[in-house]
């Protein structure tokens, strides 16, 4: 039973990710992304990584989706006619994607020869607090610097007066 549940989870994950990319309307892309993140959180739970699953669920499925939907609500909405008019061209751009995803999935299944999701064992430190605050301090600092850069990016792209 385990392997069939894992297979269903991975298929739903791939399907919702494809929907997020191929959806014609941004709101459906955001919902597809949220759904994919939620399924990924379930996959992480099944791989005995509850902390990673909680962070995935709260940040990616929750916070980031909320930000996307807030931004989408601020942009000019398209009429149904405008959406229908570009649906064909939009889908034609990504028609190859499901086939590529299928080929990649089958190849990975054949190469890894797994029948269920692996249950990884930690090789070293298991205390997340120690890993986060002591062992990976350089990564933490890098992410803080990234946030600062992002803040400057918002000022540059949205706040400073346009030249053209």
């Amino acid at each position, binding site marked *: 039973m385990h392997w069939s549940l894992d297979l269903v989870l991975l298929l739903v994950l791939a399907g919702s990710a494809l929907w997020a990319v191929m959806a014609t309307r941004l709101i459906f892309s955001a919902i597809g992304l949220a759904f994919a993140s939620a399924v990924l959180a379930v996959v992480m739970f099944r791989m005995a990584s509850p902390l990673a699953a909680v962070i995935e669920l709260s940040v990616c499925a929750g916070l980031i989706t909320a930000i996307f939907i807030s931004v989408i609500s601020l942009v000019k909405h398209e009429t149904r006619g405008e959406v229908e008019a570009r649906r064909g061209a939009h889908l034609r751009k990504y028609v190859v994607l499901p086939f590529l995803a299928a080929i990649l999935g089958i190849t990975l299944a054949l*190469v890894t020869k797994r029948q269920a999701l692996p249950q990884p064992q930690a*090789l*070293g430190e298991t205390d997340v607090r120690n890993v986060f605050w002591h*062992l*990976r*301090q*350089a*990564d933490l*600092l*890098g*992410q*803080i*610097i*990234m946030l*600062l*850069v*992002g803040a*400057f*990016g918002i*000022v*540059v*792209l949205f706040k*400073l007066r*346009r*030249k*053209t």
Partner: protein
Amino acid sequence: MSSLLLMPFFLVAILNLLNTGAVRRYAVVAGIAWSLVQLLWLLFPQSQFSLVGSDFLGRYFPLHLATDGLSVVLLISVGIVGLVTLITGHQTITDEKERFIFINLVLLTMAGLNGLVMVRDLFSLYVYIEVVAVASFVLISLEREKDALEGAFKYLVLSASASMLMLLSIAAILLVCGSTSFDTVNSVLHTAPASPIATLAIALFVGAAFIKGGLVPFHGWLPDAYSSAPAGVSVLLAGIVTKTAGVYTAMRIVASVFGFTPMVKNILLVVGTVSILFGALAALNQKDFRRMLAYSSISQMGYIIIALGTGTALGMAGALFHLFNHAVSKSQLFVNAATVERQTGTRDMTSLGGLGGKMPVTAGTSVVALLSIAGIPPLAGFWSKLIIIIALWQSNHHNYAVIAVVASAITLGYFLLLQRRIFFGKVAPQCDAVKEAGAGLLVPALLLSAIAIGLGVAFPFAVSWFVKVPQSIMNMVAQ
């Protein structure tokens, strides 16, 4: 050496917390002072100033960083190019708010670059590559001109693709080795039999490094980004960003992590050769000053990659030395381009001419830079190219050595064309009233020329240091 990563970060925090009119006007002084401190710490590591200062903040924030000879050369390059970028940007960006943001972003980019060359973990390497990429994207779009936004967008898309490949590679490495630390991955890959997943991971990471470095066939974003970015930003991008995020990353992961397998060496040789030839031939056809320099950069980075592909300590010495020389001389050419653009209002070489008499210092320093890049003695670039060609010949890659020599001749050709169009011949009518730039733009050019000349003349005394550095890294890999 934690202070090299923490100090620029704290400096940005202080500048923004204070953020008065006077602070914004003189922020560039803080940036220049920091660049000089970084250079002093690295050039005089045994001095009391360095011993006390360079790890002062590390006592409170231990970051598990490490430096070796390869990192030190890159850190010195970051200091030099950072200094020149700040001075050039201060002269060419007129809006005070934009200039303040520029200085902050350059300091954060320097922090990212310093972190990139000091980490000893694949995931940390990825984090700092991303810091540099996002900062570069914002810097390119600083003035929000249409071309710049297009160039930044192309860079963002290709950079995101490279990031995805890197993450996939790191995931595969974690699956095979159980860790992302350089030492652990290196020891597992060398003691365990080769697995297809490990081979795929190596190919993905090396491919991602090529995209970040703008090597052929992933170079599409580079000419647009270099030519449309503000002048000071082009100096930073061409001088150090693509070299560190792309070429240094490839050098580090091949030399210290994955090792010189036959597959990796062949990929490096082929990609390097194609980049050398494509870049050189494309540069011949350019009319825009900065686009010509951009294609020239692709060609010169090909030399670094082809030297790495020999898999020998001499090849690596040549790669490292050429990386430094190119950082110095290409930065200088972009400073010259900024100067010409500022004084004449254009980068179109077909509408320029005879500027040699009007701008003698700019013309003279550009001659030094182009002769160094073309490999003319006794400048620094001659020695690095000579070492690369000898390394290729000694490792029985005779065809590649011949191509490297022929491409040097093409390099000299397009640079002489550039000189002729801009600085020699009859003065173009629109250049009649042009004058030489002020000290603000001449000082960086003179400084960089002095380095190219000084290192070239003094190289016979410094050659043993450049050869010793890669030997220690290669010995570590061989174990």
